[in-house]
């Protein structure tokens, strides 16, 4: 391993960490603004011009707020749980090709931290591990609301892992590789080559599963304020609670990236236009998260499970079978 | 004498007595007749005319029309309602709608009757006059609010006896002519009178009286109010706590009105005192001396510990009679357990006096009470500075003489213009001190049938009599008839008119005559006036109910036992009902409950008095005690009534009960001793909460209970003859000025003053001293330097020293008896 590679990797890690953290921050600002506009409000306006520095204010607040650890919690687990959520969200980003390679001077930079050939498996694995954040946090909190939230989280995340996996299986069969770069390359031909056209069912299933995995409306059941306070986050305060928050938003961006790369052509042919296109696609997907939150109600936990096992999973399996048959033929 | 009759009011048959006013009969039976100017126990004023009723078809005023058997009274007719409405409208003319700041704050009879009658519009008007408010010291008069009901004038004359108020000219415009023709007659007559008068002092510009403040109590509106209370609080903010006055033996029922002290201080304080003025009259000490409480922050454990140490060491408890019966019982129990000597000279004197009285009468307690004095028509007072020893006894005497066409005798070495001013039918006998025996012998001589008396006494009395011939001028009356012009109220028009009338007039002619008269040496002993016999005959005419009040001068007299036996003889053989005036609030209770001792031991606890270790409700001792307005308990009054009193204010420190509990007794509250009073002869075993404290509509006193009459063994009727010589030369008396009884009255902020030698103008002239000068007083028992203060309410040359000021050790100048020879030296 040469020095340049190490430096490059470290730089890329730092950049991703910073970018995703910043995105999480801007994500909150963006969400508040979008929701406000959709509800005929203005959203944050006071801190900085148009409330732009609200993120900074929130950051300062979260960093400086007292980190309260209640008396009856299981202290080490309670402390580590938010870290798991945030860390897995960032770790998953390691396998994402954000842009095509480019050169600085004569050095070629690959804007991906780790171009592993089983990127998708890695992503699914890390996302699965992220489940432990809410799970452990809720169990350790010694709070009934947290416990309910944990039960829901375990049920939902495990169930929807199935949908996620099955829905990607059909595109995987088409591409024949687990590398996200290969996926990108597969669709590089233009809009017509996007997998979403050939696998619309898989796309829809994947997006639905993405909502469930990130716990966003209409599947915002793990931390449904009006039922169970803040769910697993109820007992958390200060930066520990902030880590859960960052994790959630980082996950949203991450899912948006993955969806864009898997189904919507990624960065296309590697040109600047393609790179901008990726950003646009990601932005739209992120916006879509907020949009649904403004428009749709939540479903009940039992409806969610019913949807998963009795509707989505059969459809996903059928989709794989059909894909297989089509490929065979 | 008084017969029960039946009358009908508004179709209801009610029982009453012949001669009772219709208004009182109605009130006693819960029938409402409006009345503003009438005061129970006083004479009808006829100022308001609103008590108009129809009796047997004729309109009369319920307050002065007497009930006759079978009378049929109707309280409302159309005409009566019209009159009442017009009367209330007249009262509301120019009565400023300053209800916002008026101190009556809703306790206003004008407001009540205006609403009751339903006055919702005004038909009359007259130009208002400028009437500036007047400040009369403790009393504040706002003529602008006055409706001239004259209740103040009436109560001052008929009840209190100061007659310090009268109606004065208002100086307003005449009522517009057209009203005379159109207005209801009674309303016009009432307005006509109202429009001419206001209230003012009888003499001078400023009220000169004994400051009882009863006028402020009876005022139906906010015209007469207490200067201290003025604009301090609305009546509705105050919580009334029924209690018994703690200052003298009259045991008047009163209400302490309490409220939080200020915005920032939620501790309650007493703002004023109220009384049921129809049935109880308070003196100034009771009305203004209310804030004598002892405020302590909390329990002073160190002081309590040293108190217990002192009690272990002590063999004597000295105390005064400003304690409750329960505390007296605790002291008695402590004596039983620990053998303390109980020293209370003033109560001991009464105890001994009652004991000696019982040896003749066979009764442990006198027969009369102040209610009987109120009802009597001939009242005699011996041995008491009535006005200050017990103002209520004075009110009773005045009320009896004024209302019952009565008369009275007042035996006292100090001449009192207030007593003389009650009526011309009061004869004051200013005798020399120590001559009280002569006064009682005179009573026997004048009123006891000689045949009934033991022979020795009859003979002794006969020895005072001799006959002599004197030339007298006798008046012979002749009747002549004259024609005179008199002013008379025309009933029809309500206007005064001059009418010519024939009048019988008696003309007196004087004729000289020689007669044999009986000369009574007792009268000489008493330095009675020359014409005593004649005057007395006049005073005694048509008298039926007799009362005798004796006071503390007798209990402290060197021959008090003999005096007591004489009193018993008077009560036994004459028609007089005897009342003894206890010197202090609960002297009678202490005398009945505590076994008192004569001689003190070596180490004494002082309770509100001197001692080696002092428990004090005045806040000046070694351990604080609650004062009587911070205690629950009972007090025994002059009327032989055990009256409950409630704690008006909280007390956070230790009480006598705490000490008693530490010394082997056991009671959670002091009032746990109330039922145990039943162990004392005469008292009942009733719990404190079972004792009522109120008056009924008919004026019945429902308070506590009356002591049961107690009999003891009579030992014969022998009394000793008069052996003492009259005290001569300059003398000094031990008494308190008006408004003071004890250091507790002096703790009240309105009454606080420093003690002085109170002297009449005659004394000051003789010794050439001015108010404020210091004199040195020397008696056979000690000397004292003290400032001189003028007392305009005494005459003669005997000044007096007070006991209310703890800085003056007045008692040291006396040897028990309230008089002492003394010399005065201006310093």
């Amino acid at each position, binding site marked *: 391993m040469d020095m340049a590679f190490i430096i490059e990797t470290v730089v890329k890690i730092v950049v991703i960490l910073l970018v995703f953290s910043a995105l999480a921050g801007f994500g909150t600002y963006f969400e508040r603004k979008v929701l406000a506009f959709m509800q005929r409000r203005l959203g944050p306006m006071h801190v900085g011009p148009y409330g732009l520095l609200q993120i900074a204010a929130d950051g300062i607040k979260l960093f400086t707020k007292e980190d309260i650890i209640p008396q009856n919690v299981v202290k080490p687990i309670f402390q580590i749980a938010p870290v798991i959520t945030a860390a897995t969200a960032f770790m998953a980003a390691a396998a994402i090709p954000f842009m095509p390679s480019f050169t600085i001077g004569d050095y070629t930079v690959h804007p991906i931290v780790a171009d592993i050939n089983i990127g998708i498996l890695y992503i699914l694995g890390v996302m699965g591990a992220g489940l432990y954040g809410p799970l452990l946090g809720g169990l350790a909190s010694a709070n009934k609301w947290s416990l309910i939230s944990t039960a829901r989280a375990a049920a939902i995340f495990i169930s929807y892992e199935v949908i996620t996996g099955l829905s990607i299986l059909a595109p995987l069969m088409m591409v024949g590789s687990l590398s996200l770069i290969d996926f990108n390359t597969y669709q590089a031909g233009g809009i017509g080559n996007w997998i979403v056209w050939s696998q619309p069912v898989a796309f829809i299933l994947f997006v639905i599963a993405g909502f469930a995995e990130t716990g966003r409306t209409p599947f915002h059941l793990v931390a449904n304020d009006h039922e169970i306070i803040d769910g697993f986050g109820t007992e958390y305060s200060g930066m520990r609670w902030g880590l859960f928050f960052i994790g959630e938003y980082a996950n949203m961006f991450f899912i948006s990236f993955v969806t864009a790369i898997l189904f919507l052509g990624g960065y296309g042919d590697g040109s600047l236009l393609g790179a901008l296109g990726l950003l646009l696609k990601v932005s739209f997907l992120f916006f879509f998260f907020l949009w649904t939150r403004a428009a749709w109600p939540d479903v009940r936990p039992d409806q969610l499970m019913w949807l998963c096992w009795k509707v989505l999973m059969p459809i996903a399996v059928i989709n794989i079978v059909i894909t297989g048959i089509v490929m065979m033929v | 004498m008084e017969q029960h009759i039946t009358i009908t009011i508004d179709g209801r048959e009610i029982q009453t007595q012949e001669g009772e006013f219709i208004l009182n009969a109605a009130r006693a039976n819960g029938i409402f007749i409006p009345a503003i100017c009438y005061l129970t126990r006083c004479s009808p004023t006829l100022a308001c005319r609103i008590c108009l009723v129809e009796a047997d078809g004729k309109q009369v005023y319920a307050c002065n029309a007497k009930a006759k058997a079978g009378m049929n009274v109707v309280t409302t007719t159309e005409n009566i309602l019209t009159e009442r409405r017009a009367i209330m409208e007249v009262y509301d003319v120019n009565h400023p709608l300053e209800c916002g700041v008026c101190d009556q704050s809703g306790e206003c009879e004008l407001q009540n009757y205006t609403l009751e009658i339903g006055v919702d519009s005004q038909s009359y008007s007259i130009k208002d006059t400028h009437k500036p408010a007047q400040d009369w010291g403790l009393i504040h008069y706002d003529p602008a609010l006055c409706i001239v009901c004259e209740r103040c004038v009436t109560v001052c004359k008929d009840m209190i006896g100061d007659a310090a108020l009268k109606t004065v000219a208002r100086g307003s415009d005449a009522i517009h002519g057209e009203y005379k023709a159109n207005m209801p007659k009674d309303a016009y007559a009432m307005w006509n009178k109202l429009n001419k008068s206001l209230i003012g002092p009888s003499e001078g510009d400023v009220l000169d009286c004994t400051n009882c403040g009863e006028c402020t109590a009876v005022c139906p509106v906010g015209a007469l109010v207490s200067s201290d209370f003025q604009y301090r609080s609305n009546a509705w903010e105050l919580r009334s706590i029924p209690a018994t006055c703690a200052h003298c033996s009259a045991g008047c029922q009163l209400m302490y009105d309490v409220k939080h002290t200020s*915005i920032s201080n939620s501790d309650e304080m007493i703002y004023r005192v109220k009384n049921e003025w129809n049935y109880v009259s308070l003196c100034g000490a009771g009305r203004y001396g209310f804030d004598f409480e002892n405020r302590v922050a909390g329990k002073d454990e160190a002081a309590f510990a040293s108190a217990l140490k002192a009690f272990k060491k002590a063999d004597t408890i000295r105390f005064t009679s400003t304690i409750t019966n329960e505390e007296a019982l605790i002291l008695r129990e402590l004596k039983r357990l620990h053998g303390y000597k109980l020293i209370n000279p003033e109560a001991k004197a009464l105890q001994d006096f009652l004991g000696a009285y019982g040896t003749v009468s066979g009764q442990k307690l006198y027969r009369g009470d102040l209610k009987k004095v109120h009802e009597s028509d001939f009242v005699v007072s011996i041995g008491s500075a009535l006005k200050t020893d017990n103002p209520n006894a004075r009110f009773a005497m005045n009320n009896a003489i004024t209302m019952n066409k009565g008369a009275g005798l007042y035996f006292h070495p100090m001449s009192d213009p207030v007593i003389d001013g009650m009526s011309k039918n009061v004869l004051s006998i200013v005798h020399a001190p120590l001559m009280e025996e002569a006064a009682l012998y005179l009573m026997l001589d004048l009123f006891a049938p000689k045949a009934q008396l033991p022979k020795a006494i009859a003979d002794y009395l006969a020895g005072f009599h001799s006959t002599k011939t004197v030339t007298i001028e006798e008046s012979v009356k002749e009747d002549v008839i004259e024609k005179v012009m008199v002013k008379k109220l025309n009933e029809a028009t309500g206007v005064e008119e001059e009418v010519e009338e024939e009048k019988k007039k008696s003309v007196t002619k004087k004729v000289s005559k020689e007669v044999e008269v009986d000369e009574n040496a007792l009268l000489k002993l008493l330095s009675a006036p020359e014409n005593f016999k004649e005057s007395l005959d006049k005073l005694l005419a048509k008298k039926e109910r007799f009362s005798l009040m004796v006071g503390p001068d007798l209990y402290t007299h060197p021959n008090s036992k003999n005096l007591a036996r004489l009193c018993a003889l008077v009560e036994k053989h004459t028609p007089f009902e005897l009342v003894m005036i206890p010197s202090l609030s609960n002297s009678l209770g202490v005398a009945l409950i505590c076994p008192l001792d004569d001689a003190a031991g070596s180490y004494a606890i002082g309770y509100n008095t001197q001692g080696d270790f002092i428990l004090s409700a005045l806040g000046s001792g070694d351990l604080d005690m609650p004062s009587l307005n911070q205690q629950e308990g009972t007090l025994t009054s002059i009327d032989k009534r055990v009256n409950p009193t409630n704690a008006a204010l909280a007390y956070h420190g230790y009480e006598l009960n705490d000490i008693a509990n530490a010394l082997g007794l056991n009671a959670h509250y002091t009032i746990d001793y109330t039922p145990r009073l039943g162990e004392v002869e005469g008292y009942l075993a009733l719990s404190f909460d079972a004792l009522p404290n109120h008056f009924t509509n008919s004026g019945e006193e429902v308070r506590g209970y009356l002591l049961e009459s107690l009999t003891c063994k009579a030992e014969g009727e022998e009394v000793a003859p008069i052996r003492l010589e009259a005290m001569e030369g300059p003398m000094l008396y031990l008494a308190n000025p008006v408004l003071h009884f004890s250091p507790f009255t002096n703790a009240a902020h309105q009454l606080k003053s420093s003690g002085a030698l109170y002297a009449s103008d005659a004394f000051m002239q003789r010794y050439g001293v001015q108010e404020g000068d210091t004199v040195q007083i020397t008696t056979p028992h000690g000397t004292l330097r003290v400032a001189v203060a003028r007392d305009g309410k005494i005459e003669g040359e005997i000044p007096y020293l007070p006991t209310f000021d703890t800085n003056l050790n007045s008692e040291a100048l006396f040897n028990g008896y309230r008089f002492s020879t003394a010399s005065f030296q201006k310093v």
Partner: protein
Amino acid sequence: MHTHDTHEQHGHGESELGNRYISEHYYYVDIAPYPTTPWGKFSRALKRTLRGELFVGLWVVLREMFKFDIHTVQYPKEKLLVGPRYRAVHAMQRLFESGTERCIGCGLCEKICISNCIRMETRLDEKSRKEVSEYTINLGRCIFCGYCAEVCPELAIVHGPRYENVSEQRAHYIDYAGMLTPIDMAISGEQKEFDGFGAVTPHEDARVKQTPLAY
């Protein structure tokens, strides 16, 4: 879906709704029987999913976003007008021109206060008038019912327009001096006459019986 066209149907609907009074315009939404067969359930889910309501919702909020018809009042910079009958923190009025305190210390506000939060101290002043020496309202207890302003015979205590209940000290609200209109404002006429709860109504004169006066 309006099903209550006929009288019978109306009666039927009423009984189904438990005999309560129900407006004629009420109608049932989606009252198809609950599917029992798996296929029935599946088709119902499918129908619901594809009915398009989800997308209508998305459209509505998107439309509003682009319309940008914002209703927010930016509070510290912009303030809503407070109606005259709004009952905010109390104020004590003065008389115009003279600037004398209107409060005569009658104590009616203290009496009528149903949460017992008013206390006042009064005394005789040197002009022999009743003077309010201290007045306080415990705003922690006050329920802003407005009885005190309504009962005040002098229009002295009123509800001010000050609804921003933030201060460094509670005492800033409750001392008499703080409640009183500054005297220069009263004299210069800047004090606004209270128009709300307990104020004089426009036709008061007509409703009052006149008392005859002799001058």
